[in-house]
């Protein structure tokens, strides 16, 4: 088919605009960065602080993003209720931790005082996710893609307001672990204990998940179902059971993230899952939706950009009160990646090429 001159000029114009956009953005980032570094307002220790904040925030996003990415890989559906599963895990962890705190258990056994609420949160979040899957998603298995999406939004609202009904509209204070207050001196840089523990716990969870998905039978079955449901069924895999396991596993990660998040920010409320849910979804898309290492990378990248970005880019460009634009940075990054590398950083692994 021959394209007319007009169509070719239009193509040229559009790609010219896109390229101009890319150049402007990169130029803006470079100018901002150079100006900030030259102004020398922050010491290197403060930059390290920014990066550490970003890593601990990002590892929480990564844990939640894993749930989004796994469900998308298997069902090609974005589970919008996932942010609220995170919230249910945080509540579960809060109630158990408050009860344990009352008996002085947490002060005496800080390690167990951390691990037990996390395990409880994982179980509760996994259970609730399985219920949601059974009630809101399974009956819609064969429906067009938009239908389970809307059902997910409904499930999200249901969870939020059910928790509001049970636990009230206010926020609760998560009991802090005394052993985790203060700093550790790592390589002569003071880093908050809580953030180190959260980052390490998140990495351990991610490693466990990666191990399960890559090296166990259940994981192999999950990967098979995400490649092709029908073929996997033909191979004798119980597709329903695998889907339920995927939901449970992703939700367990989110539940753990809920407890870790509450440890740092110490507040638990019925709307707390909304923003982390959106950010984690952004992280999952950023890293490549459907791709598990992608979710981890996306989460970390998002966290670090959010933390370092305002002071590194925006301040240098002379923008006042740059932290108000923190979310703008995160979502601009998402839009840029989607425009210029739609498969995400690590690439969307929906199907692998067959010979």
């Amino acid at each position, binding site marked *: 088919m021959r394209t007319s001159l007009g169509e070719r000029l239009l193509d040229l114009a559009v790609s010219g605009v896109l390229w101009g956009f890319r150049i402007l953005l990169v130029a803006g980032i470079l100018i901002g960065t150079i100006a900030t570094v030259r102004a020398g307002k922050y010491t290197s220790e403060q930059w390290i602080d920014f990066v550490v904040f970003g890593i601990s925030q990002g590892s929480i996003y990564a844990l939640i993003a894993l749930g989004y990415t796994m469900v998308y890989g298997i069902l090609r559906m974005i589970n919008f209720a996932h942010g609220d599963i995170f919230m249910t895990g945080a509540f579960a962890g809060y109630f158990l931790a408050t009860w344990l705190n009352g008996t002085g258990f947490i002060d005496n056994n800080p390690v167990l005082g951390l691990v037990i609420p996390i395990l409880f949160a994982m179980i509760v979040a996994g259970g609730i996710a399985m219920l949601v899957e059974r009630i809101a998603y399974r009956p819609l298995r064969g429906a067009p893609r938009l239908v389970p999406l809307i059902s997910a939004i409904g499930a999200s609202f249901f969870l939020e307001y059910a928790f509001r009904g049970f636990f009230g*509209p206010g926020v609760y204070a998560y009991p802090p672990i005394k052993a985790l207050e203060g700093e550790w001196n790592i390589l002569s840089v003071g880093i908050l204990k809580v953030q180190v523990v959260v980052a390490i716990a998140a990495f351990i969870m991610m490693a466990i998940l990666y191990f399960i998905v890559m090296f166990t039978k259940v994981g192999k079955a999950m990967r098979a179902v995400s490649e092709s449901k029908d073929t996997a069924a033909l191979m004798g895999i119980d597709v329903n059971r695998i889907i339920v396991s995927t939901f449970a596993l992703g939700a367990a990660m989110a539940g753990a993230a809920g407890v870790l998040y509450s440890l740092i920010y*110490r507040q638990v409320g019925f709307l707390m899952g909304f923003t982390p849910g959106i950010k984690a979804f952004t992280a999952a898309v950023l890293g490549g939706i459907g791709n598990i290492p992608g979710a981890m990378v996306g989460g970390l990248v998002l966290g670090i950009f959010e933390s370092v970005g305002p002071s590194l880019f925006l301040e240098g460009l002379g923008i006042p009160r740059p932290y108000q634009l923190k979310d703008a940075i995160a979502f601009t990054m998402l839009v840029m990646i989607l425009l210029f590398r739609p498969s995400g950083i690590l690439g969307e692994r929906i199907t692998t090429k067959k010979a």
Partner: protein
Amino acid sequence: MKRLFTMLSLFVVASMMLVACGGGATATQAPVMTEAPVVTEAPIVTEAPAAYECTDALGCVTIAPDEPVHIAYWGVLSGADASLGEDSKRGVEIAIDDMGGKVLDHDILLTTEDGGCTPEGGATAAAKLASDTSLVGLIGSSCSDETVGGIAAITNAGLTTISPSNTRPVLTDPARGPDYDGYARTAHSDAFQGKAVAEFAYNFLGVRKAATLHDGSAYAEALQQVFADNFVALGGEIVAQEAVAKDATDMKPVLTTISAAGPELLYYPVFVAVGGFVTAQIRDVAGLEDVKIIGSDGIFTADLLKGGGANTEGMYLSSPDFSAFTGDYAGFIEKHTAKYGGSTLSTFHAHAYDATNILFAALEKVAVVEADGTIYVPRQALREAIFATKDFKGVTGTLSCSPSGDCGAPVIAVYEIVNSDPASWNPASADAPNPKKVWP
């Protein structure tokens, strides 16, 4: 399938009509009004047909003899700031109790709308209230943002609202615009609060370098600017003015930026969510371990102690001066304790009490009551009566409303939190007040 769909849609539409018409009215009426069958059809008044002719420019509210007088409270009733809205609502409820639950021999019906402390929430709540023609007057909103979002709808519906806790200065500025014609408030303007805090910081604490942080809300942004302007006028230096988004949770990056500027004091007149996070995280940031911290009435609630934890001890909070209330504040507190137990939740309960009483006083002045008990409330006359309030003896002071709706009697004090345990929160306590007044 198509037939099923058609039948289902007909069923849904029919049930919607039935629900809307509900209450025994005939199905031929337009199913929108929330008033019971007091329409032009069957006349209820059986005496001489000299019924009141409503000549008010904004129309009248008609209240049948068996109907209640309907007022509404709109404010923040969910989320992190729920205690602020709940606190004011209690003031309204106590005022209604003090009137015996009745005004002009009709029961008082109080309904509530949640504004969520955002402009969008305020607009939604205001839209719902504006469409309710049985409403006589409103108390609200809690947050200045809600008013910014919703006041146009309320004014255009002919309603008048008295806010117990909005403090943003421009809301009662003479040049505020016609959208605010239906708006008055019994709370102070932050032009006073920012000035008081600046004086406290400069004279009492003796600091010369201050930084401010706001959360993007209309209230916080205006208040920290008033503080900054006054602080500089006194001779101090503002080394940093930063902001975060209202739903931000990670404060350490912005606090690190602030610490790089070397302040001696951080003033963050924000709401509870951001206030809790900042207070909980500020001592973990290098350089801010000893900085003095001040907040304002937006975080004057026990929820701040829950969110901020141990770091709230020694923190200062500015607020209306409870000990300067010229009315019977102690009596009000007794009624509050008897009805709700425990301490007051925040700062503006007495202001809400006064606002409600001003509304009812204006209502009693302008309402036209027929012999059979039907009440007609001319909206414009009610609005003018509220704005004409002079020397009204309220709990918070002797109140007079300016033509631009400023009815407050502003006296600001600074309190110090002496105990970070949320259960110890009781600013009105005589022997163990927490927080405790330290200035003036």
